């Protein structure tokens, strides 16, 4: 009985916290981006998709943006046909929440290069993928399975140059593009709470 209870609790935990399980099909979602477009994951079937839990007020994200390292990575990936979806799940009551209008202004000011910035203020997509922190990164392979979940790089810091770090997302995407197995498929995400 006790074992059964534990099992049920464990399964529940697995079910909620790790919906994005490595090697398993990535759950589909539909969202609206800051320009009012409908973004559906299934539409990108056959392409590598990067999900970025983003909040530019978080010092960790802010450092990646301030140094321009994140924009460079976005540009590099887009050029290779990779889809980059920023998922901003900050709830509307939080001071870090952005209205679509504010988000568009920030997009221009920070010279973002992502495919789209999804307004996920309901938290639906973030919770579906168990996004824990900003920046928590997910890489979805072209076959629609989850290939990577975790930190952007091995340098959790709000200071300094991220280019000096080992970038797990770049590694995963590069390996996928080369048709190789992703070596590091899971790391501990660092950063700020998502503010669901």
């Amino acid at each position, binding site marked *: 009985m006790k074992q059964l*209870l534990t099992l049920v609790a464990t399964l529940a*935990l697995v079910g909620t916290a790790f919906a994005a399980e490595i090697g398993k099909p990535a759950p589909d979602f539909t969202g609206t981006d800051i320009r009012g477009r409908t973004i559906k994951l299934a539409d990108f079937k056959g392409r590598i998709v990067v999900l970025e839990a983003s909040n530019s007020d978080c010092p960790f994200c802010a450092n990646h943006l301030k140094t321009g390292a994140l924009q460079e990575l976005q540009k590099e990936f887009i050029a290779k046909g990779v889809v980059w979806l920023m998922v901003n799940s900050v709830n509307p009551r939080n001071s870090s929440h952005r209205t679509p209008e504010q988000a568009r202004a920030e997009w221009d000011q920070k010279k973002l290069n992502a495919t789209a910035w999804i307004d996920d203020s309901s938290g639906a997509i973030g919770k579906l993928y168990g996004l824990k922190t900003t920046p928590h990164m997910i890489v979805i392979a072209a076959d629609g399975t989850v290939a990577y979940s*975790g930190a952007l790089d091995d340098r959790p*810091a*709000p*200071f300094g140059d991220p280019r000096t770090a080992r970038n797990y997302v770049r590694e995963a995407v590069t390996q996928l593009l080369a048709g190789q197995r992703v070596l590091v498929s899971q790391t501990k995400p660092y950063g700020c709470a998502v503010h669901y």
Partner: protein
Amino acid sequence: MRCLLKLLAVLFLGCFTASALTAHTQAKLILSLQTARAGDSVLAGIHLQMEPAWHTYWKNSGASGIPTTLAWTLPAGIKAGPVQWPVPEKLPPDDFTTYVYQNEVVLLVPLQISPEAKAGVAGIKVHVEWLECKEACVPGSADLLASLNLGAEQAASPDAPLFAAWQKRLPESSSKLVAHAAWEKPAVGDLRPLVIEWSGAGIGEPDFYPLGSDAFEVQGETERLLSSGGLFRLRKQVKRFSGDWPAKISGLLVLKTPTGIVAYETDLSSAPLAPVANPSATPEPAVSLTQPLWKMLLYAFLGGLILNAMPCVLPVIALKILGFVREARSDPRHVRKLGWVYALGVLVSFLSLAGVVIAVQAAGHKAGWGMQFSNAQFTVGLTVLVTLVALNLFGLFEVNPGSRVLGTAGNLAAQSGLAGAFFNGVLATILATPCTAPFLGAALGFAFAQPVPIILLMFAAVAAGLAAPYVVLSWKPAWLRFLPKPGAWMEHFKIAMGFPMLATALWLLNLTTIHYGDRSWWLGIFLVMMSAAAWIWGTFVQRGSAQRGLAVVIVILFMAGGYFGILEAQLHWRSSPDSASDTRVLAHAPEGYAWSPWSPEAVAKARAEGRPVVVDFTAKWCLTCNLSVAPAFASKSVVEQLQKLNAVALVADYTLYPAQITAELARFQRSGVPLVLIYPRDSAKPPEVLPEPLPYPASYIPVLLGALERAVR
């Protein structure tokens, strides 16, 4: 951008000052000594003071945040050691746990001054970076400076008291305790349950604060499996990111007590139950700690069933039988309903008890069966209640059909009401608690160390056992055919049952002497006054016709006089009674042999001398202890055997529920007394836990003799 400006301003202001203020955190560098000598070790402290609700992070920040970092710039001849981190706070929620410092913290760093260091003033510089968070997070940093005089004489700095205070908040070394960790079962996905267990002093809420790792994460949620008797066990889920399942997990074993927090630094080898520290201090093995739940539920049910035959419960039971006799020939559906309501009364009472147990444990205390008798007011209330029930049985007064609070006997004459049946169940439960029956001790000992749902389940099983006979009889009233037809004998039987009830009241009155000593006599006087009032009520108010008003006034005068003049003025029944003094410990020891007070040291000493040891855990309120165990120990044959074996006899008095004895009972998976342990002469062997006695004299003598024989084999 705003943050950046702030940061720049801070860096500017902060350069080469002893303190710096960012948005929400003030940082300061302090030293334990103003003047140090060459070769000394000085403590440096980074004093971070956060605004309310802001926090900085521990060396494992948890799900978000980053640890504060220090970079030293030190003159030649001074070296900085590793940071000593005070015990952090664990910040919920469970699925996003962080380990933080709120309000303030002093991170301690030992500075070693080389013996060759020259006299003069040394500049100590440190660059501190931290992340401060409330809802949002802001990075902060500061360059801090302090000067240390190097001279011939040590001189403490004005900050020395602050160092003393924060050194107390560092985790202690785990050499003071024994800890184990073991994988409970194979992984489910990337999650695997780890059970951590340790024994140590203190009572409170155990937890484990892990150190960080890139390869795995010990998740925030803690399932507390056991927290009693100096034994703590909890389950953590470990999430693996890469590599094999870790063989070693480091962190703090934490105990949150009502007065503060104690933590021990530890490295847990996650091999199956391998001792990691100080194996010589391993306590003697207690009984097997893992029992299948179904077996324990069965024990709980059987224990509840046997409770029916215990002298504490018997009078209530007899009344219940009477009820059936009266009802057997009436509407069977009504009878069934009464049976179920009675069972419901038992169940509700047991679940309330379970609730109390859970609440007491949640408050960081230990709970035990029968612990309510260590509460003076409870005992007084119960004495009054049972006396009233006895008087009611004698027919001194009736319980108004309109308000069936004391429905036990009154309802036998009138219609057996649902409220009466319910109350019967409650009363049976209350009266059952001072008894433990065979099976019940093991079952409850198991239950008290379980998580909340299991505690509730176990108590429900005892309730089911206690109520089972009536539910069965209410379905098959025909089985009661052997009893005579209802008639005048029922009235006689009812009065006869008043006497065991009165005896119960007397026993309870005797119990109050634990708390009030000689003053308990006044409670007796009050009971007499109350009885008189009950008689006047029954005879002149309920059955009389004339002068009813006068009778009511007299009853009120009696009760008010009794309450204010005796309970308040003489008994001081509400004042917290004197606690037990150790001199009384031997008051409940069996006679005929030289018994000494129990202590772990006394056991160890006797075993070292190669003598067998007998420990009798008893309490004044424990009927089974006093009716069965003590007389058995005092019997001629057992005394002779004890003398022959030169056994050391120790008595542990649980009357007032001392924490040390609660802890020892829990070690043997018991939540109450009686418990008899016999330690064999061969000190390598574990003690034998004797089976629970029936509360009838002489039944326990052969059990004791047999166990004593085995002890010297």
